[in-house]
Each structure stands twice: as C-alpha cells, then as structure tokens.
C-alpha cells in the first residue's frame, strides 16, 4: 500500500486494523505524532489529512491511500521551525512535550478553519469573519488535552503565530 505523507510516498504492508497513527509510529518511523489514549479522547495524535485536522488514532490507515497526510515532521524541523513551532518554544507552550505535536497540528488546522470563517460553539455569529479571541482559541483547541497544563502559553503562542497582539494580564490592583 502507498501513502503520501509530508509530500513523500511511503510503502507499507499493513494490517487492515492498523490505525493511521500506528502506521506513522510503528511502520514508518514517524514518531512525532503521539498516542495518549488511542480512543479519540486526547488529541495527541492529531495530524492533517488533506489540510484538515483529524485524530489519527480514530481512523484506519487503509482508508487514506489517496490522501495527503501532514504530520508534525512535515510542518517544520528543529533547524527550520514553522512559525507556530517557534512560537510554542518562545512562549513555553509545553512542558513534557508529549501533547505538543498534536497541539501544533491542531492549531495549524484550526487557524485554517478560522480563515475560512467556520464558526465555533462560542462564535458570535454563524457566518462572517471570526474574531479570534482567547475564548475562540481555547474553545477550538479543547480537543487537545495537555496534562502539563500549558494552556495559557499555548494560547499565547497561537496568538502570536496568528499575528495577534500578545496576551495582556488583567490587573485590577491599585497600580493598574
């Protein structure tokens, strides 16, 4: 079977039961995508399939022979980080790093959804341009758990990569 991953065609002889995630991790050596639950509950395995984010543990590899798959390895390398990856480093948007590739793939897909005007549960309107507030970012990223709880920094990183102003803390003390 053939799979197109990060623009490269890979051959693999796999079980029909093999998930897309296990194809990547166990057969192709692309271990950047992580397994946190294998049940679509954590988002650590998020990759892009034809540009859309997907939990790769919840889909069978054999279904994706005609798709363009992008993993964290295709987003940037340690020496040439994509803007989102660099923003995660700068804002410390991770600690253990295990959820991080999933967060970054998810954020990549999420920003594209925003660009297309897709609304979320917290959007003011169902059409028109989305105002990418912190609440919007957090809502749209809630499928990606981070037990180290880097959430405030992940939001800050996504804001920067999306070209938004940095987070400002609301301080209401005397010298506010």
């Amino acid at each position, binding site marked *: 079977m053939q799979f197109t991953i990060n623009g490269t065609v890979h051959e693999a002889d796999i079980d029909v039961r*093999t998930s897309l995630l296990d194809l990547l991790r*166990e057969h192709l050596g692309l*271990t950047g995508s992580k397994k946190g639950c*294998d049940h679509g509950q954590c988002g650590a395995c998020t990759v892009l399939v034809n540009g859309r984010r997907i939990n790769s543990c919840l889909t069978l590899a054999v279904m994706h022979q005609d798709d363009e798959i992008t993993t964290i390895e295709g987003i940037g390398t340690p020496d040439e980080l994509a803007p989102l990856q660099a923003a995660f480093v700068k804002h*410390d948007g991770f600690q253990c790093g295990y959820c991080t590739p999933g967060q970054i793939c998810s954020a990549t897909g999420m920003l594209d959804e925003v660009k297309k005007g897709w609304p979320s549960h917290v959007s003011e309107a169902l059409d028109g341009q989305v105002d990418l507030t912190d609440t919007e970012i957090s809502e749209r990223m809630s499928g990606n758990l981070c*037990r180290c709880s880097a959430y405030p920094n992940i939001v800050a990183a996504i804001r920067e990569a999306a070209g938004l102003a940095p987070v400002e803390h609301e301080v209401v003390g005397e010298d506010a």
Partner: protein
Amino acid sequence: MSNSATLKMDAAAEHSLLDDGVQGLIGQPLDRVDGPKKVAGKAPYSAEYAFDNLAYGVLVGAPFARGRITAIDDTAAMSLPGVLAIVSDPDKFLRNSGQGGQNEAPVQNAHEVFYMHQPVALAVAETFEQARAAAAAVVVRGEPIDGEYDFEARLDTADTPDDGVIPPATSQGDIDQAMVDAAVTVDGIWTTPGQNSAAMEPHVSTAIWDDDGLTLYGAYQMVASDRMQLADALGLDPEQVRIVSAYVGGGFGSKLGISSEAVASAIAAKQLGRPVKTVMTRQQVFDATIRRSNTRQRIRLGADENGVLHAIGHESLSSNLPDEDFFEPAGIATHFLYRGEHRRITHGIVRMNRMLSGSMRAPGEAVGLLALECAMDELAEKLGLDPVELRKRNIPDIDPEKQIPYSARKQVECLEEGAKRFGWDRRNRTPGAMREGEWLIGHGVAAAARTNQLMQSEAVARLTPEGRLVVETDMTDIGTGTYTVLMQIAGEMLGLPADRVDVHLGDSRFPPAAGSGGSWGAGSSGSSVYLACRKLREQLAEKLDCDPAKLTLKDGEAIADNRRVAITDLIGDGLEAHGRIEPGKTSESHTQSGYGAHFCEVRVNAVTGEVRVARWTAVYAAGRILNEKTARSQCYGGIIFGIGAALTEALVHDPRDGRIVNHDLAEYHVPVHADIPQLDVVLLPERDPYANPLQAKGIGELGIAGAGAAVANAVYNATGVRVRDYPLTLDKLLSGLPPV
C-alpha cells in the same frame, strides 16, 4: 587534586557562586533547550526507539478483583496469527507498582489478585494489532473471593501506618479542651476523591537484552531507584540493568516507581530473545498503575475573638491495599502553616481492594489544603474577619511543633502582593451578592505551601578540549525543564554560553541523581552540577595559578590577575569533575517550604450550577528562581491541576468490585483549554540559603497546593453554598443556588 566535590548541607550556603557568575544565564527566562526537538516531534520518548525484530506486548488484566488465579488459558490466543507467546511468570510479575525512591522490588506474586484488572499476563506478537487481539483472547481463570470495596463502611478499621519519613501522627497540648475553650470554632469533615495523574504519555517499557544484561527504555521519573527495583524484581545485579528515560511525557508521581509493563516486557524479551515493547492502554494506566487516594479529613480550628488560633487539628484517612505503607499525608502542611499551641495531626489507612495509592503531584498538600484552607475561610467568616487578614494573624514566629526557625518565608508578602494585584479589597464579602445576568460572581483566596526537600544527587561535568562543557546525571526531565536549568547552572558556573553546554540525562549509566519527585529535582540535581562545576573552576584556577575566588569565567575565557586566556588553553586533554550533594543538618534545623497565595474569581451559572474560573492571580516565593519561564510554566501546571481537583476530577469506583468505572480521558475529566483563562503568576525574589547552594526551593508542586481551595472559597462567595465534598460538580450546588 581530587576531582570530586561533596557537600552535605550541614550549614547555610550563605554565598552562592551563581551570584558571582557573569555569563548571565541563571534566572533568565530562557527557552527550553529541548524545545525545538519537542515541537518538531524529534524528541525520542520511550516507545519511540527503533529495533530490528521488535515484538509488541499488550498486558492482560484479571477479570475479578480478589482471589486466586488458577489458569491462564492461552489456547485461543496462541491460535491467532502472529502471536509469539502469552507470557505469565506469576512469581516475578508485579502485583503492585513501585513507590518512589524505594530500592527493593515492588510487591510481586501475581498468583493472587488484589484489585480489578491487576496485570497477570503479557500477550506478545509480531505486531501491535496482533498482540491486542491476542490479549483479548486470553482466558484468565480463577477463584474469586469477597473483597473490601466500601470505604465509608470501613472507617473504623483504619490502621496507623508505621513511622517513616513522614510521621503519621503528632499531638501536643489538649486539642479537645482547647476547642471547648475557643471563642470561635470550625469542626468539619471534608472528603476528596481518588485522582489519576493522567500524564499524557502512557506507561511504556521497551526491553532488550544483550550479553551485558537488560536495557529498558522506560517512561520513569527516578532512574537510579527504578533500576534497583527492576534488578531486584528480576533477580539481577543492578550492574546488569540499564534504564534509559531521556524524555518522559509527564509523570506527576505516576512514574516514580516501576510498573508492571517493565517487568513483563523484560521477562518476555528474555524468553523470546527479541526486544519487546509494551505500552499500557489508557485504561490500564487508570486501572493498574497508581492513584492518588481518596481522603476523609476532619479539620478542627479553635480561635480567640481576635482570630488567633489556639487549636488546630487535621485527622485524615486514606485508602490503600493491604501491606502497602503509603498514606496520603494530608496534614503535611498543617504541621507548620499556622499557629496553635494545641495540635493534633493524624493519618490512618483504610485497607481496600482498590489499585495501589501513592504519590501524585504534591502528595499531602494537594488534598490537605483543599480541606484546611476552606476551613480557614469558614473561620474567617464566623469571625467577621477578612480571610487574608486571618491568615496573616496566624503566621507562626517559629515552627509551632518543632520549635525551630523557618528558612526563607515570604508568606505575608505573597498574600499582600496577591491581594493588591487581584483587587481583593474590592471583593464583596456577602455571598451571592454579585451577579451579571445569570452568572453569579465570587472571589476566593487560599494559601499555598509545599515542603522543600533536598535529596542526595550526583553528576559529572567535563570540559572537552574543544571547550565544550558536558554534564551527565541520571536525573530526568519530565517537563520540569531540567535540561534547561542544568545548562543554565553549568554555563553560569563556567562562563560558557548556552550553545557550548550539553546536558545528558535519564540514563542509569550516568551518576545517580535524586530523580524527579517531591519538587526536589532542580535543587538536588542542580546542586550536584553546581558542585561538579565548582570543582572544574578550581581546576581551571590551578592551571592558571590563581585563586579560584578571583577567577572570572565568561564566554569561554578565563580572566584573573589582569590575565585573559581562552579556557581551551587551560583544558588540555580535558578536565572532569564529579559533584555530590547530600542533605544535612539544615533539613532539621530549619523548617523549609515554598509559599504562595492564590486569588480566584469564579462565575457560577445560577440556572445550571456550572462553574467557570474567570480570573486568577497567584504569587509565590520559592527561593532563587532558576529559569523564570519554566518556573512559571510549572506554576500554571500546578494551578490547573488544582482547578481540576476542585471542579472535575474524581475516580469513580464500582462499589461491587472497586474497579475504576471512568478509566479513560473521556470519563475522567482533566481540565481542557476552554476551562482555563489566562493566569497571572508572580514569582517573588527570594533566596533560601538553608535549602541548597543554589538557594533555590522546589516549585513543581507549589502551584497545586491550595489552588482548589481558592476555587471552592470563590464558589461559596458566589453562591453561598459550602461544599465539603470534592469535586464541586453542579449537582452539589444546584439545590442551594439563589432563585433565578
């Protein structure tokens, strides 16, 4: 000249060489050195090493909670394609996971089952899919007997654990009489549920044997003691066992000791003569590793009219398996946080057939302060005192039990600075009085404290002829920032920029370190690196023939007595030094803790009872902050764990067999992005010379201590509903909410 330096902390480290450094690394909010690898998916976690001929293991759990295994029937499993073996070695298989820091094997003997889904066999196959199918096809037979599953019904069977590192029971004065005499009292029972660390990386081991013995790539927090546990469990010399944990996807206590997949993978790999990798399923992480115990805590506070405490009691019960000596030390901070000449702090264990309980982030404080800090809020209300003021009035002059001084302690400053930043003076003290539409608004405060500890730790530092500095220790970085802060310490000490320092961690071939636990990691392993580097400085000074105190090192140059030479001219064929820190008298002479204060605003929906955390300010003091960026992240993590504990996290045990019903991430609710606002975290400048030569205290667990209590106190302020049974789910609030 000996090339090793040992320091026993018998006296305050009044002067730290870190303050003489001019490289400008220490304390700086530097990016993590392992960051680029992690964000690019290139940091290898323990399941991600490639081996030829790798076989896959999947654990099989017992289908009953208590009883004896009579047969493991592998007939159906072995007939499936690709299956290599159904491995069961009940003498050696772990029954319980290991506790942190122990050097002996955890409880073995898997003939007997003591909790539901206890691992009893390992299905091994050519592929993961085949192994998973095989595990499902294994038939485990046994003779189930009755077990103990009802905590509430067994309270009076609790036993008092043996005296250990933490004394289980202390008492002074006459608390019963003092409660009678007190002008104002609080006497209540708080309950907290079991919790799971739920690190995002499941427990995993890959075992491979060669002529030298076993190498295990495992997700572990304490490599040195885990190696001892594993060697003992397998009947090997420690020299025959190597553990590699270069990157660990979170631990929070759950990976302190070895768990069953390590022993099972090792046995299977030996039996089959090929490497075996076993990753626990998420459900197995919940069912068969370690949990934070549920607790039942009675708090008694007795104060005079001025709010000064004279009586303080904290009597708690937690649950564990028979013969396990760990108890949840819920009263640990109550020993020293507040005044009171009449005191009683006790702990008991109720024996049950629930999976092992052990350390999870801030064992003790994390749940103890959920009770104590809410009791303080109730006391403040009864006294008509501001809760910040109540806490300030009860800060002891010296440790009220040990009668010894405190080391650096900015308890007051944390409360005052937090109150100022948060705008605490504008809080409405009347519960249920602030409202915006259908949202009730409330504010709460709680103190944070987490005992500081120093553990023995060793490291080696090496200057290479090319002028690079290499640091090696078997310390781990579980997200704590160890790679980065050790680089900063070493670079500062030897005047080298970040890109000339290489830190290698998580391999038992390196000198044994304290490991990541109890917030002692940075202070302990950092001190060993400090000492090794101090020795290297002395060696450089000797080569330069100058007094080490007069030596300035910067950007690879040594400067002394009006001379300036490249250190590569001094290093020759290379220099090496070994550093070792040991706890000493300062652990006994001074009560050491990090301190903090949490201020929280919640919004509670008056119709649904939904609680949203809207705003947060936390101020901490924990000695020298080694890296402001990574330290702040640790604080965020702690606070958010605390929010989870307050609002959503609870292990639910089936009353019929103790099994954890909600054993996955869909049913056990850790906080998600949408639950968390931006958090305002302030780290006060402080130095603690009694802690270690870095003058730094632990910060990884300080954030969780008290955080959930601030939420609960804010919920009360918003709604007028006091809930003493965590978590504060909406069903517990609904009936008490004011009319819509």
